Structures are given as C-alpha cells and as structure tokens.
C-alpha cells in the first residue's frame, strides 16, 4: 500500500468539493439530455476518485475516515428533503391519491423484481439487500440499504446507473409500447429513475418534468416507509 504523509489526507474534503463543483459546471454546459445524463457529476466524481484510489493503491478506509465530515452532513441533508417534498405535495393535491398509488406500486415492483432476481441468481444476502431500494434518490437509497444490512456504496452506484439508463432509454421504451400521456410518462420516470430521469423528463417536456419531480419526491417518502417493511417480509416469507 502506498502511504501518503498523514497531513496530506486532509485534502480529501476540499478535493471532493472542488472535483464535484468542476464536474457540475461541466455538466451544466451540456446541451442534449443524453450528454447531461452521461456527464452526471456525482457519477463522474465517484468514478474519478475510485480510479485514483485504485491506481495509486490508496486505502479506501483512510479516504472514508478523512471525508467523514461530508458523510455526517448527509443525515441533516436527508431531513431537509422534507422541504421539496412539502413544496411538491401542495401542488398535486388533486391527483395525489392516483400518484401515491402508482408510486407505491412502482416501489413494490422494483423491490419485488430485484428480490426475485437475487433468488434466481442465488446471490449472498448482503447483495440482495443492496438492490432492494434502487428506484429512489441516492441519499434515501444509502440510508435504507444501510438499515437492511446491504452495501450502501454499491446501491449508490446502481441507483446512478439505473437513472442513467432510464434517462437514455426511458422515452424510447414509452414510444415502443405507445404510451404517449405526459402524466403517465412523468410519474413513471420519477418513480423508476429519480433525479436523473427527472432531468431528462424536464428536457423532454415541462409537463412530463413536473409530474416526474412530484413522483420522485413522493417515491423518496414512500420508499423510506415501504422498503424497510417489505424487504424483511419478502426474506421471511420467500426464503
């Protein structure tokens, strides 16, 4: 293992922040929604740092220890998510029941399908728990996966990949199955592909984007409630 001088590790936090802000500025300049999805700053930041750690043979444990400050701030940030949730709630009161119902169905489907695949492939339980909460924004997925005994870092990477795929191919899929309703497309994108899908939905049509952001916000809340109850139930009843 290459050992950096101890005083070098404090650079972890400034490097993460600088890298993310740089990549976000780059992402904002992208014109097409496909390029915007591929240059997702979180995905690229994680990829760049992972490649650096692997190639320089630096221990992840030290990196994690010295970037704890950022990980600690994740908890209050998740609490602050109540604000956009509230802002979306008051705009969709008319269709709230229908959107709540379909979002719940989508979350149950995502957890159930992922669980069936883990049974089919006979994967270890920690891997099965890691894919239980993927159709949701990354911070919620991290916390839920952690509470289920899964590998939260793997879940974070999977969530981003799912968002990217949804953003790139989601609308092609809708065309293929002839689903043209903006409301339906928006709710589906927000439920299945969270923020990255919502960004692509906004680029497609403002109405699709509006419904997608509502569904994304509601899915965050519903995933937090449904998955910690559903996953142990599936494990106990089907395994």
């Amino acid at each position, binding site marked *: 293992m290459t050992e950096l001088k101890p005083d070098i590790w404090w650079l972890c936090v400034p490097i993460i922040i600088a890298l993310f802000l740089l990549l976000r500025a780059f992402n904002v300049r992208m014109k097409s929604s496909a390029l915007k999805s591929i240059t997702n700053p979180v995905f690229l930041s994680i990829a760049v740092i992972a490649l650096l750690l692997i190639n320089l043979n630096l221990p992840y444990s030290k990196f994690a220890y010295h970037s704890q400050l950022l990980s600690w701030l994740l908890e209050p940030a998740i609490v602050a998510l109540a604000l956009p949730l509230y802002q979306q709630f008051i705009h969709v009161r008319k269709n709230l029941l229908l959107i709540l119902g379909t979002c719940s*169905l989508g979350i149950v489907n995502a957890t159930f399908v992922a669980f069936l695949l883990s049974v089919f492939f006979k994967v270890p339980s920690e891997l099965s728990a890691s894919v239980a909460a993927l159709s949701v924004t990354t911070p919620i997925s991290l916390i839920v996966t952690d509470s289920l005994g899964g590998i939260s*870092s793997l879940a974070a990477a999977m969530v981003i990949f799912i968002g990217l795929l*949804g953003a790139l191919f989601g609308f092609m899929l809708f065309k293929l199955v002839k689903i043209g309703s903006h409301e339906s497309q928006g709710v589906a994108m927000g439920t299945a592909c969270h923020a990255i899908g919502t960004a692509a939905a906004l680029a497609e049509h403002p109405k699709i984007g509006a419904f997608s952001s509502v569904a994304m916000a509601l899915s965050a809340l519903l995933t937090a409630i449904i998955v910690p109850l559903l996953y142990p139930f599936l494990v106990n009843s089907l395994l």
Partner: protein
Amino acid sequence: MKYLLSSAIILLCLACAKLIMYYTGGSFPAPLLAMVILLVLLLAGIVKEQHLKPCASPILNVMPIFFIPAGVGFIEHLNLIKSNWPFLMSVIFIVPASTLLLVSSVMVFFKSRKNND
C-alpha cells in the same frame, strides 16, 4: 438568526427521530423518520416554509457532495461485483424497465377510466 432557527429545526427533528428509534429499538432509519416528522410539521403549519429555507436550500443544493465518499466505497467490494456481474446487470436493466412499464400503464388505465366517468 434565520440560519440558526432553520438549522435548529432540522437538527431538532433529527434528534427527536434518533431518540424515538433509540427508545423503540426499531430498525427504521432515523434521518428518514426525521424527514417525515418535519414534513408533517410543515403540512400542519407548525413549521413555516420560510423558517426552513435559509439552511435547507443551500444544504440541498450541495447535497450530492455528501454521498460521494459513500459511493466510492464500492471499490471495497470489487470481487463481489466481479463474481456477481450477471445479477447486477440484470437488476440494472430489468428493475427500471419493469417499473417504467408498470407505472405508466397503470397511470394510463386509471386516467382513461377517470376521463370516461
């Protein structure tokens, strides 16, 4: 003062949720419970949007930075990923595709029923 109040609301909700989870011994994640508590307080009008905004808006703006360290952690599990890549690839393709199809179809079904009524 407004920043102090805003951060105090967030931290108080988090502290309450942690206490609830500690005394009930449940496995529900405390930050998520705190988010639900804060949402209920907002919907009930006990906490106003403008009280929360000063601290919540900037923290939400830079939120993606906070999960980068955790996201990098997948390099600790490269062997597990290598040995289970068919499973992981299936999940990445099948889970979002099935969810997109199911949710959009159900939405179309209920919307057309509502319009017919």
